[in-house]
């Protein structure tokens, strides 16, 4: 019985790890391919100082790619899950802040195309769901990894 519970718990953990890895890999590609368009999306958030916009827009997709690789390969998990949870908190805060001040921005989450549509409540909810998965992974890695 106990073995069954542990194997279910492991399966859920591995599924969550692969899922979040896939999300980060998918999120990174379009932004790496179109740096100028993603820089514009970052600028439109109007949160970072102008001088930091390009460096942030260049670095973030590569960080997402590395997180995706780490999560899928199961390496450097303490660092990868902590950054993943931290990044998602920052994304949600940035989206919510701009919703609150009425700025009609494009999310730039998975695509740099403006046809993706403006970020709405659904975008925030989606990121909250990702945050829940990421926080679960972080707790699992920090407290239960010995059982994997």
């Amino acid at each position, binding site marked *: 019985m106990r073995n069954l519970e*542990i194997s279910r718990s492991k399966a859920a953990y591995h599924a969550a790890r692969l899922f979040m890895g896939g999300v980060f890999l998918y999120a990174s590609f379009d932004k790496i391919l179109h740096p100028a368009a993603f820089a514009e999306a970052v600028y439109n958030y109007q949160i970072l100082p102008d*001088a930091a916009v*390009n460096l942030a827009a260049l670095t973030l997709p590569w*960080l997402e790619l590395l*997180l995706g690789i780490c999560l899928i390969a199961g390496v450097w998990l303490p660092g990868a899950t902590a950054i993943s949870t931290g990044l998602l908190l920052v994304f949600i805060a940035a989206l919510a802040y701009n919703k609150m001040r009425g700025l009609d921005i494009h999310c730039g989450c998975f695509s740099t195309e*403006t046809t993706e549509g403006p970020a709405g409540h659904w975008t925030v909810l989606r990121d909250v769901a990702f945050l829940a998965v990421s926080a679960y992974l972080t707790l699992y890695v*920090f407290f239960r990894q010995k*059982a994997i």
Partner: protein
Amino acid sequence: MNQATLSMGNRSPSKPLRRALWQIPALVALAVLLAVGVNHWRADGIALVGDWSEDARFADASGGSMIVSLDRVRELFERDALLFVDARPASQYADGHIQGALNIPWQEVDRYFMEAADRLDGAGADAIVTYCDGESCDLSHELALFLKDMGFENVRVLVNGWTVWKQAGLPTVEG
């Protein structure tokens, strides 16, 4: 005590925490190195510190600013020497637009442009001025670049045009 509590309690987080403390800066440093390295090497790389001034954001292909001031636009409007082109979606145009403006919604430019081309050609205006709404709205800029590509001359952008025009109490129409 249930199984989850037992499992959560059977391990101190200090070891993963110690690992996280070096893995986090290592991953960030690696990402910065990859970003800067690949950006340097690729043909469509961008400046590490960008110029996000208004003139740079609303520049034409050769880097010249396409921005026109409200005062200049007002003067041309009073002389009937310009043609406004509203780049917002048709529904927003119908809710209200600058008097005399054509509507070429940027997101449906292929559909609207052919219809509007004759009027753009025949207007004989000194300038074509595109506008949309909001400081960071880029529709007017995209449309202005497109019109320039199509061979129209003296195409300009009135930044945040709908709002600044309304705030100045200048003529607007609905429908």
